[in-house]
Structure formats: C-alpha cells, structure tokens
C-alpha cells in the first residue's frame, strides 16, 4: 500500500506545487516509486514545474471518467524513472473530480507505487477537499506571514475533521509543517513572522524551513524541480525535508541569518 501525502496550505502562492514537485522528486531519487498528482483542475501547472507540459496527452479527469487508462495518463519523469506525473485537466473545472473517482485512481496507484503526492489547489473548496480526503500524511506549506498561518490553521482543522481517517475514526492524518519563503534577515527586522511565532500558533512537527531563494524561480522556469539544484539552499532544504520525512535526524538549517552561519546548527523546535 502506498503512503498518500497531501501538500496543502489553504492560501495560494505559498509554494505547494514547488514543494510537491521537490518532495516527489526527492522520494523517487531515493529509490521509492512515486506518483505526483495535480489536483488543481482548470489551473494546472505541476506539469510546467516538472517540465513535462509537452508530453501531456491524457489527464486525471480522463482517467476518472474512464476515457483513458492510468498507464496512458501517467507521464514518466525525464530525470528519474521512478517518478510519474498525473497532470490535471486544464479544460475542465473542479466539479469534474468526484470522491469516488479520486478514490478509485488512488486505489489503483496504491498497488504499484510507494508514495503518492497530491498537489492540492488553493482554497478550501472541492479540489482541496478531495486532495486531502484520502491522505495519510499532510505537508502543510506555510509562509511566515499571518494570513498564510491562519489559512494553514484552517486546513489543519479540515484535516482533523473531514479527512477519511477522521471520518472513519482511524489514526489521524500525520501533519507536518513546511515553512517556505523564509527570510531570516526580514524576520530579524520584524517584517516577517519568525519560526517561533508560527509555531506558537500552529504547534506542528516542523519538517523543514525552505529559505527564500532565487533558485526556486529559476528552477520553475526551467521545468526542473528545485531539489535537483543541489547547490541552492532551497534545493538542500528540500533534500533535508525528504530525509527527515523518511526518518533521518537532521538539524534544521536556514533559520539564522547567513552572518550567523555557524549558528545554523541550532535545532528548531518541533
């Protein structure tokens, strides 16, 4: 059985798709057969970030409607042959997704894959709800600003009450915090919330801090998950995230300003 991960946030533009692409690639690179699904029907862009937009023939909705088989729709990544992408439909809207349809696709994928990463759309409507419903683990992507933190809190509430695990009274969805676009210098000057402020409100297990980095935009434009850019801080941060998720104990980095570089080994609180 595959482990189903939802990457969610509530708020838009915080880095869900970047994160989905990076962790899916990270898991696959470590030898786990991984599928990443774009749930943002009508506004698909995971395929762009993954650089496979020219190879999209069939999509998630086609599979749900039985117009294509899963094998026809899955796109094998050009950089890693254990990674597959299931793109969203650009021409439909989110009503084309159904709870049963999504369940069926995930069920079918479960037999063949070890990890399934669900890239949630922004908002708390149907698409976001369906992306999280079947999840085992949730990566809550949050920016260090108050509206993003509030929206993440709301998502956590939905995970705790509306997911399949909650409805069936099973063990709750495991929730992890990913603090993205973190800029220690702006935290220091008080323009941004610090890690402690965010944790004060969310109190979640911190999986990693992704520093604000130009390499994210560069990687996105090149259609290459930023985790493959091993020289960039963001790439390394995602690498850490994947390692921690798989059980490795790595100290948190990128919390401190660069000037305090050797204080970087300060452990973050969980």
């Amino acid at each position, binding site marked *: 059985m595959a482990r189903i991960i939802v990457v969610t946030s509530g708020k838009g533009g915080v880095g869900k798709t970047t994160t989905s692409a990076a962790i899916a690639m990270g898991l696959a690179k470590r030898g786990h057969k991984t599928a990443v699904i774009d749930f943002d029907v009508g506004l698909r862009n995971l395929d762009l970030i993954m650089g496979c937009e020219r190879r999209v023939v069939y999509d998630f909705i086609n599979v749900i409607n039985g117009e294509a088989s899963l094998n026809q729709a899955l796109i094998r990544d050009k950089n890693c042959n254990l990674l597959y992408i299931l793109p969203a439909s650009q021409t439909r809207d989110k009503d084309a997704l159904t709870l*049963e349809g999504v369940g069926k696709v995930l069920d079918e994928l479960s037999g063949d894959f070890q990890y399934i990463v669900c890239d949630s759309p922004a908002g*708390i409507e149907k698409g976001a709800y369906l992306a999280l419903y*079947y999840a085992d683990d949730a990566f809550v992507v949050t920016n260090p600003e108050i509206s993003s933190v509030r929206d993440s*809190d709301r998502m*956590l*509430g939905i995970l*705790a009450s509306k997911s399949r695990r909650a409805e069936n009274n099973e063990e709750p969805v495991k929730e992890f915090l990913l603090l993205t676009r973190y800029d220690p210098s702006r935290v220091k000057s008080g323009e941004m919330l610090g890690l402690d402020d965010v944790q*004060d*409100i969310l*109190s979640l297990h911190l999986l990693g801090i992704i520093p604000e980095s130009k390499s994210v935009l560069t990687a996105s434009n090149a259609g290459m998950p930023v985790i493959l850019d091993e020289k960039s801080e963001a790439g390394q941060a995602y690498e850490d995230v994947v390692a921690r998720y798989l059980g490795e104990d790595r100290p948190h980095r990128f919390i401190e300003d660069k000037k305090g570089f050797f204080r970087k080994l300060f452990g973050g609180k969980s």
Partner: protein
Amino acid sequence: MTNTSSVLEFKSSTFFTPILILYSNDPAAIEQSLQEKINRAPDFFKNSPLVIDLRELNKSGLDIDVIETTEMLRRIGLFPIGIRGGNEQQNKQANKLSIPVDAGGEHDSANQTLNTGTTKAQSTQQPPQDSVADNTVQNDIEPSESIVHIDSTQSPAEPVSSMIVTQPVRSGQRIYARGDLIVMSQVSAGAEIMAEGNIHVYNTLRGRALAGVQGNTAARIFCLDLQAELISISGDYKTSEHLTKQMQKKPVQIYLQDHALIIKEIA
C-alpha cells in the same frame, strides 16, 4: 478504500441536535424569543436541525399547531427534523409533514435517530462498556431508556456530562458542548467553542469562547492565556478590542456580575 461493488451501506452514527422545548403555545412569543436566541449565536443556529419537544406544553394542557410551528421555524432558518411528546393530533400533523415522531420509550427507528446525540453524551459518564457487557440485552436497552431523563431539562438533578477535547481546535472549527467543555489544547483564532456550562481551556485561547449559551449566567470561562477574539457568558460579550493585554499569558477566569464580564487573574 472505496467499496465500488456496493451501491449503499447503512451505518449507525451519532449526531448532536438541539431540542426546542416549548413552554408557551403563543406563536408570536415563541418566534420573538427564538429570534433573540438566534441573534446571540446566528452562525450556530443557521440551518440547524431541531427536534421540537411538546411534552411540557401538553402537560400544561396547552395545544399547539405543529404545521404552523414548523412553518415558522423553517421561516427563521431552522430545520425541524422531529417532534416528541406530542399528542395524537400533533403526531399526525408531524407525519403529514414527513417529520419523524419520537414515540418515547419504544424502539423504533425514529427514536434511534432522535436520541443518538444524547446517547453519546450520556455514554461518557457511564462506566466502561465491558462492565455492562455481560448482559448484552440490558446494554442494548439501557441507553434509550435513560435518555428520557437526561435531556429533559425538567430533571436538573441528572448531571449533564462534560466534553473533553484533546486535539487543538483549529480556525474554522466549532465545538458545542451541552454541559461543560474542557479543551486540553490550544483554541486557534477563527475557532469557536460553545458550552451550555463552563469552558476550560488549558492552553492559549485565541478564538471565540461562549459559555452559558442557553442562558446560564453562572457559567464561567477559565483559560491559561487569554488572547480571545471574543468571550461571552450567557450572551454578554466582550471582543478582543476590549480585552486588555495585561491578562495575556496568565491563568484567568471570566464570570458575569450584574451583566458585566469580570476578568480576574487566578492567583
């Protein structure tokens, strides 16, 4: 995962449903009084299902038209889903409106649906299941028998159980307790916790907390760190604008004195 071979499935589930106990048969008075209650917690009552309890009315020999009452309730945004304690005529009217009638102690399906909420509330104060499990039949009957006592407010001697929440209450979540509400974790901004009795929060309270929502002016709110958006006891409220920051990060209690909310540090 989803079972694709079957079309449907029956499951028994529990729900909490407010019970509207009528003491007057004057439609105008009922409507006015209800409207006042709704105005205090509009979100809570919006589209809320409701069971109409006519026992008190019939006890006092006051008759009421179920069809008219139902229409009035629907008009103000409530959804009556059952009646109980009605006389023959009233039950007939309810059936005509496709509203299930709770026949009291009988074990019919309507009875189950109507009372499930209270079964759950009650089970928390019952001894663990296995202590009664040696007699399954008794175990089966007991809940719905004793329910009759529990949710009829006429027997205040019967304690209403309290509700304990151990998970964080996140933004957008709402919790309603018929008795006391005890929250072991934080209550986020944008969350709403309500109790007919007292509210205890053993962590930071950032959301809205409403105690004594059914008019219990003696209800209190206790918390370890008061950063609430709104606190209310029996309808008297204060918003965060009127809460001083001095009370943050300190254990406090909030109670009502002459319609004024008093916030006091617990020394």
